[in-house]
């Protein structure tokens, strides 16, 4: 039994080492447009993606197109990968899935186009309003903010308070209030716009 445990442990370690290596390559692509790192990623993933693609496309040319389009997106979107959200392989898989989805839609020539990015939203992406944290990190502003908060419509006020004073994430707010994340974002955005307006009036 101890042998089994040890083997399992070794396997995990090697898989994790691979994961780290892939993150390292991807970072090099994101930060330095490192073609050698990209080639390493390609050599690892392209053959695997191609086998996968061949299960979905009889035509080899389509399978290759899926691989090339996926890897081009990896090149273009490397900076959007966030390692806390999962492994490089999973991120790559979702890109490939979306590419395949869109290729199939194009082949069917549906009159009502619906592309993968319209369906597979990025639920945890909060970077779009993150900049505003800088705005409220100073104590004076926090106090001011509390006063301004009272002037907001209730829905916006609750969301803003949960996020800036109770340290909820946007997702947690959405879950707690049973409202879509998009609604949290829009309320937050409206609230911040209003507060910025109020701040400007005072300066």
């Amino acid at each position, binding site marked *: 039994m101890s042998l089994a445990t040890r083997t399992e442990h070794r396997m995990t370690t090697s898989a994790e080492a691979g994961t780290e290596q892939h993150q390292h390559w991807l970072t090099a692509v994101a930060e330095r447009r490192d073609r050698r790192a990209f080639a390493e990623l390609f*050599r690892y993933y392209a053959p695997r*993606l191609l086998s*996968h693609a061949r299960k979905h496309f009889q035509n080899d040319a389509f399978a290759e197109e899926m691989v090339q389009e996926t890897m081009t997106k990896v090149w273009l979107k490397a900076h959007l990968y966030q390692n806390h959200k999962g492994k490089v392989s999973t991120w790559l898989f979702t890109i490939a899935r979306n590419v395949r989805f869109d290729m199939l839609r194009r082949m069917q020539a549906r009159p*009502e186009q619906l592309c*993968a990015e319209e369906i597979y939203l990025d639920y945890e992406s909060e970077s779009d309003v993150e900049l505003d944290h800088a705005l409220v990190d100073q104590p004076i502003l926090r106090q001011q903010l509390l006063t301004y908060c009272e002037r907001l419509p209730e829905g916006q006020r609750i969301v803003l308070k949960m996020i800036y004073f109770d340290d909820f994430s946007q*997702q947690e707010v959405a879950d707690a209030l049973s409202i879509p994340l998009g609604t949290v*974002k829009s309320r937050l955005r409206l609230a911040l716009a209003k507060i910025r307006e109020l701040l400007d009036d005072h300066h």
Partner: protein
Amino acid sequence: MTTIKHHPDNTLIRAYAEGTLAPSVSLLLSAHLEYCPKCRAAVQQMEMQLSDSVVSAESRGQDSATTDRLLAKLLRDLPEIDESSQGNEVMAGSTGEMGSISDLPELTLENRRFVLPQVFAKQLHKASAWSRLPGRLHQARLGIDNSHIHFIHMDRDSQVPPHTHRGTEHTLVVHGGFADERGDYRIGDFVTLDGRHTHQPHTDDVEDCLVISALDAPLQFTSGLARMLNPLSGLFFR
């Protein structure tokens, strides 16, 4: 502290993660994910599982010549990205998103407004006008693919005649709630019904209800007067 009780089953979650689910149903499932942390985690888990199997699958009959050829071609064609344009792209991206988010997806019926999941923001322009149905119901159609998506609004204290489904119907509650013989359904709940189920959804006298449903075959009414509606079901749920 979410109150969601009804979730898409594992087959749907898997097909969604694979990208093999009908687009209209994918859209509905994606909307459910906006309400449901449990299913978001399930999708992530499934994506990880699927990607692991892609990675670990034997790539036999793969010659490195093919990889080399594809790599050489791709390296030649790779779009150049200079840092400044990348910055612009990010900026443009976030402004674009801002634009779409301030256009909160909202559906209006008479003088009521309903906030919809974000995923419908880019789809709403495909919605038809509301049509009135017997039983204080309203319906609007979203034409996507052969299997259409419907917004169905039930007023307070109203009911849909008993019906069954020739295909499979997936329903997501986005406002209020309704009940049928099998239970009650609140905001965020995702319900799947097929030909085995006959049901008679109704609302209570407190709150109206808006659902979005993806249906791949017309409803069949099973009882009394409502059966007379069957010839009209083309108009009803198509």
